[in-house]
């Protein structure tokens, strides 16, 4: 298991859990980071941060610090 920001480019992970109980964690859940959801790391921005993800058919940009909250099981 790794945190989402550590996924390789183009790799897919299955969400295991979202860490924390603050605003960031709640927002991540609202955005669909539910256990079992497949997330793909599409690319990193020119300076390595933020990262672009794909989940549930839409594209999302997260800073690495935010992505670190999501624990995934690489597929």
């Amino acid at each position, binding site marked *: 298991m790794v945190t989402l920001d550590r996924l390789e480019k183009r790799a897919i992970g299955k969400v295991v859990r979202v860490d924390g109980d*603050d*605003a*960031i964690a*709640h*927002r*991540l*859940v*609202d*955005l*669909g980071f539910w256990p079992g959801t497949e997330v793909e790391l*599409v*690319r*990193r*921005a*020119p*300076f*390595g*941060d*933020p990262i*672009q993800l*794909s989940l*549930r*058919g*839409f*594209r*999302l*940009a*997260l*800073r690495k610090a*935010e992505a670190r909250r999501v624990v995934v099981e690489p597929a």
Partner: protein
Amino acid sequence: MSKNPTVVPPPTVALVGRQNSGKTSVLMHLTRTAQHPVNFPGSSVERVEATATIPSGDGTPVEMRVVDLPGIGSLEAISPDEQVALGWLHTGEVDVICAIADVGKLTIELALVQGLRELGHPVIVALTKVDQLDADVDAAQLEDLLGLPVVIVDALSGAGFDRLGAALLAAARQKIPPGARKIDPDEVARRVIRWRTIGPRAERRKHLTDRIDAVLLHRVFGLPILALVMFGIFQMLFVGAEPFMGLIEDGQAALSSWVSELVAPGALQSFLIDGLINGVGSVVIFVPQIFFLILFVSLLEASGYMARAAFLLDRVLSKVGLSGRSFVPLVSSFACAVPGILATRMIDDERERIATIVVAPLMSCSARLPVYVVLVGTFFPSGQAGLVIFAMYALGIVVAAVVAWLLRRTKLKGKHSTLMMELPTYQRPSLRVVRGQVGAALREFMVTAGTIIVVAAVLIWLTSYYPRPAEIQERFEAKRALVVGDDEAAQGKRAELDAAERAAYLEQSALATVGKAVTPIFEPAGFDWRTTVGVLAAFPARELIIPTLGVLYSLGDVDAGAYDLASLSHPDEDDGLRKKLKEATHPDGTPAWSALTALAVMVFFALCSQCAATLGAIRRETRSRKWPLFVFGYMTALAWLAAVAVYQIGRALGAGGAS
């Protein structure tokens, strides 16, 4: 309404959905009218209201009040804005909730809809962005599974909005709350969306948006492409606005000469021409640029590219406590801070938004350019001109970075800075939405900023026109009487006397008296009293320094519009103001201006808050008096400090030449 007690208020629809769900399009299509922002009672959180006219069953149109709430992602309030918006949903003011659901994110939208149905109001689901999906969506089945009315709407064609309006009106009249029903969002989405291609992932990979993003978000080419796009926009902006600005200047000149024929010379004529027409003119002259800028920003936003710009630059801007979302407002401010400040509306974090607003006026706007051009062309060799002007732009950017960094660590310290931003599917912008945004921005500029500039311009006119002692007139009448004949030389002499008379009046006017009184404050920066008066006159709008200096140096009318970048290449062509500035002396005979003074004045203009329109926009956008005052205070203080530092350090290093 109070005259007729039987009139019931129109039913109220609450538009609820997350950001980017297409809420704004739904509002614009439903209402087709001007929208106006209103604050929630007792708070500074804003909602947008408009009236929709719906044809009811018996043919008579019925009005509905449509309230667009701030973006909400769930029924659990996280930000204070969400708290206020959600609190309002619990009140009896709401008759029906219109849940805006982006079909591309159907599962998470359904989770939100499930929360909304528990509030006890009727819920209608508006499905948006169906055209962006390579799939068929079974709305009837979704209705069955949810037990709620579902309407598919298309922002581009406008299809479905009549049905949505009718469904909302019917639900608002019946007011039957939806019952509870347990659903599995994943399961429902799977059954309702029938992919035309093999499966979601294959579909996404082939998607046009992803192919475009492979280029536009490329690790190496992404940033150069963004630079090119912004450069192109600025080119189109200046080229597009120029003919209109020329027309406005011509119109202003024609109007002035018409008034000067109609009204006898005197206080009334001067008030109409130098006060009113000049004041209104200095508002209207910005309209073409603001129009094009808002148009381009709105197109970028609606097409989806804005989010990409934010993605590419987030890392850089996060270093100073801003985010990628600040990029477009800040870049827009290089043309004009007013539309730049309006563009901050897309920043959802309030503190980050205010930090962006506070530093946006430090970007060197197009009104500063004539000031730079006049002074650089006069006091610097043409080989250095570009470098000096570039340094002024760089100064603004560096100071903005420092101010933003400081603010985000003190007064505007946020609990957490986030990006969490959807990169929407590229789409053709909806004309109605773009037109609505451009129209609203222009109206707001004309009303809020316009009023302030006109009032300030009239105030500057009043103080520069009065008092008018008879002694000056007598003195110049006597001199004019000495000029005989009507040949060219005599006419030239008379024009010279007229200009000298205007200068004599201005020199003892209230404005000049104030200017002379505050000159000691500006002396450490190397400004003489004339420059000081010019600086004071420029507080409503920067470019006013040029006509003011023109009058003070007895030149008659000098037009700021004459000083564009092109004029830098031929600074020696007859240029009254530049010649006069070089020749001007202190009372003791030493030159009043040097390259060092010019540099100090430019630095002052680069940093100073000399724009009533910007302050008005800040007042409006932050809904407070505190922030415009703060911006005025910190920028003016910084400008003074920097101008003094430049002059004193320059003097210590032996530059400047003055005694």
